[in-house]
């Protein structure tokens, strides 16, 4: 009997707890506004705010995360070497951390030691899977560095045209429009080619975004603008090399990558020149830089999996100043400007049997994970599967108020052209033009409130 009683109490406890945790049964106003990542939120406002693992993980998971963390920090060297062997032969940087400084956004320079900008390249048209067409001798990404004795594919030159504008009240802001040109091409490219610069994005919260059900994301799409708000949004279905199938793209500035695993494996292969089980062929294969070594895959599978797990389990920093009146007013204005038409405040993750901490989390990433036409000002004019010439994936905004803290001074947008959040807003166009104009017409006090809100994320 006693045993039954205990079981009874335990069952009741389970019931109660389950009820509490069911997202749908828990009223929205009972959530703590600070918990941007649900249970996977951390309270850290230091320069390491993006570098914390999910709270409460099992010891074993912590070990795997730590192993992935160590691998993320490791510099690769030229083969053959006893450790971290296989750099390049052509590459963009020597370790993950050298682009993703402090697990955050990087420096918008190319070819320098701490540079975090890479440039994609392709020919007009689409390949067999509907993706961009590789450039013979270059592939789909330019590697602007090389190990000793090999030639980098090119040098990427960035120049800016600076223009000062002012709001109606006289406050000025400066937009710098970048131009990307290539010099020192190691071999000629015949015909016209398209370039797309991409800055290393922050690493945290990715596991949660991957755990959002596809149906929830696709439901945001409004390809014919049925509600007439000027915002369309479309899902970018891409060819996923890992699963050898068409999948919803979620990651990358144009949502051209379906999963964290594919993203990590592609970055090892393309950015550092480290072959792995997903991408076992050197990026320089078929080119004069190819090393011809029989050392592929260079990355142990355990390392690939651990770094994938690391990227999956970096926690989201909590919001600050959520009860502040200006912050609240800014949030209201953010909604009134219909920024939330794309920057969706709340998503809910699905059930993840393999890794329960990702399950049923109410999160506030401020993205719909769809691609939108952002107008000619931001356009790279290089289609990427379903993402058109002017399309970019809605950037998540969680943690944006900490960019300056983590990556002093902080850069914004796909190529880091914006140096402040105001500049980033004023670069918006296309489907976001109306929201940008709304912001531009606000009084200084109201603009400051909206910025205060954004800085609280």
């Amino acid at each position, binding site marked *: 009997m006693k045993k039954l009683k205990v079981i009874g109490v335990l069952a009741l406890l389970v019931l109660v707890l389950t009820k509490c945790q069911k997202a749908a049964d828990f009223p929205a106003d009972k*959530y*703590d506004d*600070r*918990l941007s990542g649900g*249970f996977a*939120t*951390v*309270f*850290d*406002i*230091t*320069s*390491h705010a993006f*570098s*914390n*693992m*999910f*709270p*409460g*993980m099992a010891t074993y998971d*912590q070990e795997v*995360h*730590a192993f992935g*963390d*160590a691998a993320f920090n490791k*510099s690769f*060297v*030229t*083969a*053959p*070497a*006893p*450790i*971290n062997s296989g*750099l390049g032969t052509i590459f963009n940087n*020597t370790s993950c951390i*050298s682009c993703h*400084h*402090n*697990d955050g956004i990087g420096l918008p320079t190319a070819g320098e*030691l*701490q540079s975090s900008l890479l440039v994609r390249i392709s020919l007009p048209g689409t390949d067999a899977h509907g993706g961009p067409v590789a450039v013979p001798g270059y592939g789909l990404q330019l590697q602007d*560095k090389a*190990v*000793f*004795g090999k030639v980098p594919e090119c040098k990427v030159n960035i120049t800016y045209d600076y223009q000062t504008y002012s709001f109606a009240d006289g406050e000025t802001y400066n937009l710098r429009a970048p131009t990307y040109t290539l010099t020192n091409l190691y071999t000629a490219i015949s015909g016209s080619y398209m370039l797309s610069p991409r800055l290393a994005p922050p690493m945290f919260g990715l596991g949660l975004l991957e755990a959002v059900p596809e149906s929830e994301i696709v439901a945001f799409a409004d390809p014919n603008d049925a509600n007439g708000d000027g915002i369309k949004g479309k899902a970018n279905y891409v060819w996923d090399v890992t699963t050898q199938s068409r999948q919803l793209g979620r990651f990358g500035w144009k949502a051209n990558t379906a999963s964290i695993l594919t993203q990590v494996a592609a970055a090892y292969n393309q950015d550092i020149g480290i072959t792995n089980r997903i991408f076992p062929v050197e990026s320089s294969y078929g080119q004069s830089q190819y090393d011809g070594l029989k050392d592929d895959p260079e990355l142990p599978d355990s390392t690939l999996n651990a770094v994938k797990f690391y990227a999956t389990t970096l*926690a989201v920093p909590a919001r600050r100043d959520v009860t502040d009146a200006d912050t609240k007013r800014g949030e209201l204005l953010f909604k009134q400007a219909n920024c939330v038409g794309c920057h969706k405040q709340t998503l809910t993750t699905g059930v993840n049997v393999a890794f329960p901490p990702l399950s049923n989390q109410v999160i506030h990433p401020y993205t719909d994970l769809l691609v939108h036409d952002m107008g000619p000002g931001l356009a790279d004019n290089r289609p990427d599967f379903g993402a058109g010439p002017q399309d970019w994936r809605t950037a998540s905004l969680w943690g944006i108020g900490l960019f300056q803290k983590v990556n*002093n001074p902080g850069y914004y947008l796909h190529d880091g052209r914006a140096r402040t959040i105001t500049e980033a807003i004023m670069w918006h166009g296309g489907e976001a033009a109306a929201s940008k104009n709304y912001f531009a017409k606000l009084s200084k006090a109201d603009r400051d409130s909206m910025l205060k809100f954004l800085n609280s994320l």
Partner: protein
Amino acid sequence: MKNTILALSCIAVLGLSSCSKSNNSTPTNTDGTAEAQVITDFVNVVANPNYIDIQTNASKLNDAVKTLVATPTQANLLATRQAWKDTRAAWESCEGFLFGPVEDNSYDPTMDDWPVNKVDLDALIASNNPLSVSDITTLETTLKGFHAIEYIIFGVGSTKKAADITAREKVYLTSLTESLYNTTTDLRNSWDPKSGNFSNDVLTAGKGSKTYATRQAFFTVLVGSMTAICEEVGTGKMQDPYAARDSTLDESSFSHNSTTDFKNNITGVLNVYLCKYNGVSGSTSLSTLVAAKNAALDNKIKTQINTAIASFSTITLTYEKAIYDQRAQILATQAAIATLQTTLNVDLQAFIKANIKD
């Protein structure tokens, strides 16, 4: 970057904060005089003097190399090695407070990346490529800094002789040490009140600092950096070669200086906690602050730091040999560091949150 224990303690915070809306009472402000003095003393007694030492020692290393190049005797090689070790010691102790420009401006990887890209380094030396200081600037970080210098002056297994150093190596070595000196100068200047003046960001924490909105924020970062180096030494630098039984994974394997490196890292933690550097003590330290309110915690921290530092003396072989023959001693030292790490990250951080309110 990892933060295991922070993660654990966050569950508690999360659990509490999600149960009910936070209604913390307004914290009572102490006058903060002692806290201000701890910050002032940290800046003036520990941080700046330590950065000055790295620069001074790097300058001596560069001088020693010039002497070695002019007169390549074994005595001059030994003097150069000693100068490298001295510079290294100052650098390792400042890793007890690895925040600010050293991190933001990537001075750390520029000076101390690892492993050395041996294939490229050997090829570079064998080539006719220019090796001036400005050429060094553009080299990947695995081809310069402490460990590239170490490779040239010690060689694999510390077998290098003065007579073995080639003409090209001499040119490279001279530029490498000058380049290292330049980076240490940049690092020193970044804190120098007459230059970058990051000192002021720290000194004005909570009083207008653009980096630290509150003093509590600064102390959290300070203790966080002490914790981080414990973790890096205990679970990274010591663990990797130990677990793999592979001495090529030792950070300073050419010089057999790894154990000294580790010990100096933890000495850096002691320096910060006691506000003490090179025999000079500040008037008020983190220890003073803790002792005033929680003498038991202060004693616990001091004992644990000293235990961890003392534990290194049980590793009597080079670390390259100890990973095979003194595994118990390594394990015990790691355990002492782990204990300290937990105390800093849990107890001391909790103390900061509870007692530093401005």
